[in-house]
């Protein structure tokens, strides 16, 4: 895993050094990084899915992860095109539909990862009580972070399906941080640990992104710094998913 960590680190550094940039250069720069990171992650996930057959849950986990980040890259790319050329795809229902499908793909993929682990019958560290307590704590965090936006989405579900589905997807991901971390702890010292730990790290970065978005209005931070934080969390989340896929392939080659 240590050998792969340089990938998200490069992404974070690339985002951080752009802090002094002004718009529209900054927006174009960050979008370009997001497109590259999304495409890279999608390719890594699709390559990893080839280790499995369609009868395996993990095949669909990696395919859905790849499809989710491919959609994200396309969406970021569309926005980038508009920023550079001044025209392109701006049809809101299409962009919203892509965001909804992307969130659904990633949430389902994470559920499949957790189901795959359970199917192995392997034990996770800690007593049953401590496992239940940590899973419950993860769910509470998910409710705290996503509860308010979810209620808003529910109240206006007819008009704001995007907020509803996006928040629900985020909440599923956050609630699954603990179940994704447990296999990493159970596999510590082994090569496969890197895949599970990176998946959990990706969701932790998305959690940090959501918390940052929620706290942003109350923070007294320069707009440029604010934007950099936002992009750092997002880029880290995407690239940790990429190194999860790479770590999975390395483990299978061992």
């Amino acid at each position, binding site marked *: 895993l240590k050998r792969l960590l340089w990938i998200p680190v490069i992404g974070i550094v690339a985002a951080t050094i752009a802090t002094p940039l002004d718009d529209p250069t900054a927006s174009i720069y960050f979008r370009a990084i997001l497109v590259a990171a999304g495409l890279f992650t999608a390719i890594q996930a699709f390559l990893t899915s080839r*280790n*499995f*057959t369609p009868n*395996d*849950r*993990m*095949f669909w986990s990696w395919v859905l992860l790849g499809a989710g980040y491919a959609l994200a890259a396309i969406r970021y790319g569309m926005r980038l095109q508009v920023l550079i050329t001044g025209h392109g795809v701006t049809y809101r229902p299409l962009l919203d539909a892509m965001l909804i499908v992307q969130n659904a793909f990633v949430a389902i993929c994470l559920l499949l990862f957790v189901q*795959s682990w359970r*199917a*192995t*019958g*392997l*034990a996770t560290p800690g007593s049953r009580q401590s496992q239940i307590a940590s899973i419950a704590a993860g769910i509470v965090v998910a409710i705290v972070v996503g509860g308010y936006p979810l209620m808003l989405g529910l109240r206006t579900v007819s008009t704001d399906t995007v907020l509803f589905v996006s928040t629900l997807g985020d909440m599923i991901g956050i609630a699954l941080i603990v179940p994704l971390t447990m296999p990493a702890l159970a596999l510590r010292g082994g090569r*496969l640990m890197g895949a599970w730990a990176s998946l959990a790290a990706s969701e932790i970065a998305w959690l940090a992104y959501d918390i940052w978005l929620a706290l942003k209005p109350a923070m007294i931070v320069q707009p440029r710094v604010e934007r950099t934080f936002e992009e750092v969390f997002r880029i880290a989340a995407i690239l940790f998913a990429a190194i999860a896929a790479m770590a999975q392939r390395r*483990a*299978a*080659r*061992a």
Partner: protein
Amino acid sequence: MFSKQVLSTDPDNITPAQVPVLLDALGPMLRTLLGKDGAANVIEQVRREVERAT
């Protein structure tokens, strides 16, 4: 866990003769986590290590 389930013994007490039975039992779990080829690689690697050690 697998050694207890399949061989009713602790991992430290497994004999080389019991290894093939244990590897067969580990197969489905390894296939779930690593895929068919990855699982075959790991099983082959363990088999080689055991042969070298005995």
